[in-house]
């Protein structure tokens, strides 16, 4: 499933975008505690392509994708 989410992000002067908080569909906010890795990647599970941020949120690793300005996460029941 492709779950679109809201994101609070910082746009760096060099054009990089650093997500700071993710806003889930119910309005709850989740701090992005750490970003391990950023690269372009396809999400076969969700069906999409974008800049993939490997983030730590509540001590779990989550893939957050920026697909041309719309953000989504791979909605994975098993984490």
């Amino acid at each position, binding site marked *: 499933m492709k779950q679109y989410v809201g994101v609070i992000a910082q746009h760096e002067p060099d054009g990089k975008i650093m997500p700071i908080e993710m806003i889930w569909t119910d309005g709850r906010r989740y701090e992005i505690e750490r970003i391990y890795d950023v690269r372009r990647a*396809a999400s076969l599970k969700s069906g999409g*392509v974008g800049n993939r941020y490997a983030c730590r949120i509540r001590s779990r690793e989550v893939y957050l994708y920026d697909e041309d300005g719309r953000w989504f996460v791979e909605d994975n029941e098993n984490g």
Partner: protein
Amino acid sequence: MTRVILHSDINNFYASVECLYNPALRSMPVAVGGDPELRHGIVLAKNNIAKKYGIKTGEALWQAKRRCPDLVFVPPHYDRYIRFSRMVREIYADYTDKIEPFGLDESWLDVTGSLVSQDGKVIADKIRERIKFELGITASVGVSYNKIFAKLGSDMHKPDATTTITVADFKDKVWPLPVRELLYVGSSASRKLAGYGIHTIGALARTEPRLLKNWLGINGVMLWQFANGMDISPVSNDSYPIKSIGNSTTTPRDLVSYEDVKITIYMLAESVASRLRENGFICRTVQLYVRDNKLVSFERQAKLPEPSCVSDTIAHASMRLFDLNVNEPFAVRSLGVRACDLAPADCRQLSFLPDSERLQKKEELEKAVDSIRNRFGHFAIQRGIMLTDRNLSSLNPRDDHSIQQIAFLR
């Protein structure tokens, strides 16, 4: 010096992109094509499962459905294909600046002297791996010392494979293949060759070029050179995968006044211009298509004084073409506006003429309109003229458009 040439071909391009976006489709036979209710719809692409049912590109949708009742039809999303084509090209650009596109899904790359590696296969494998990981689709890549054999190689193993053809092994790998696998051998040439008992590329290669010239003209000699690995054509950087961007519509009622025509032309020109901007193109020629209510149609084109991606300019040129070619009274049923002779916007010559400053301002204005429409929808902002006849201007032309890829023989 021996060249190192790659030919990369995305496997089932349109279908692969659709299957990436809709995971549920991946286990079904899928054909990309227009509305199957319309009799003229054809299969533009299919996935591997549909291929197993014998579905063929170019066949009518109703025919395909008869062959495979479970076939799922997906309408084409050209914007996605253009985006993917651009992203694939960005990957190629990490290995060479000599890239020649051949349609949206194929490219030749000259990687001779690439700093990444001296081994074409290593680069080809790396490119395939990146396309799969970054874009979620696959490519077949041929590696050889000329463009013709590189293209043959990319056809030999699918999907997701690298095939090399060298000076030492081309006679083993290429010569047993049917002659029509060779680029530029069409059905008429292959029929003629068959008449002389020439069925394989090897047989073609061993035929006297003098004879081939008699049978096929100068093309016969060219094909003989190709079959012997003597193609020396360079990978040229100055071609673009898209030849033109156009949009046409059949109007809800006959257009009988210049005002009617103007509304429709502006609507089409706006959509064409916004697509030009979206893909970073300017056009040098505008083409107008007109069909009247007796189904008589014609096409006329005009060069623009200055290359442009501004809808005003495109609409003016189209209106002028209409004025010059249609006399009152008229009853027009279909109109089409096409931007041809495309070039990338960033290679536009700088000019300080007052006219180009005015054009620049219009371009900025229209880009602002694009961004409003992207955020709030097409009808959030409109020209005043569109309000004079809401029936005519109610189409959202961006959803219905066509792109024309380069032809196979340029």
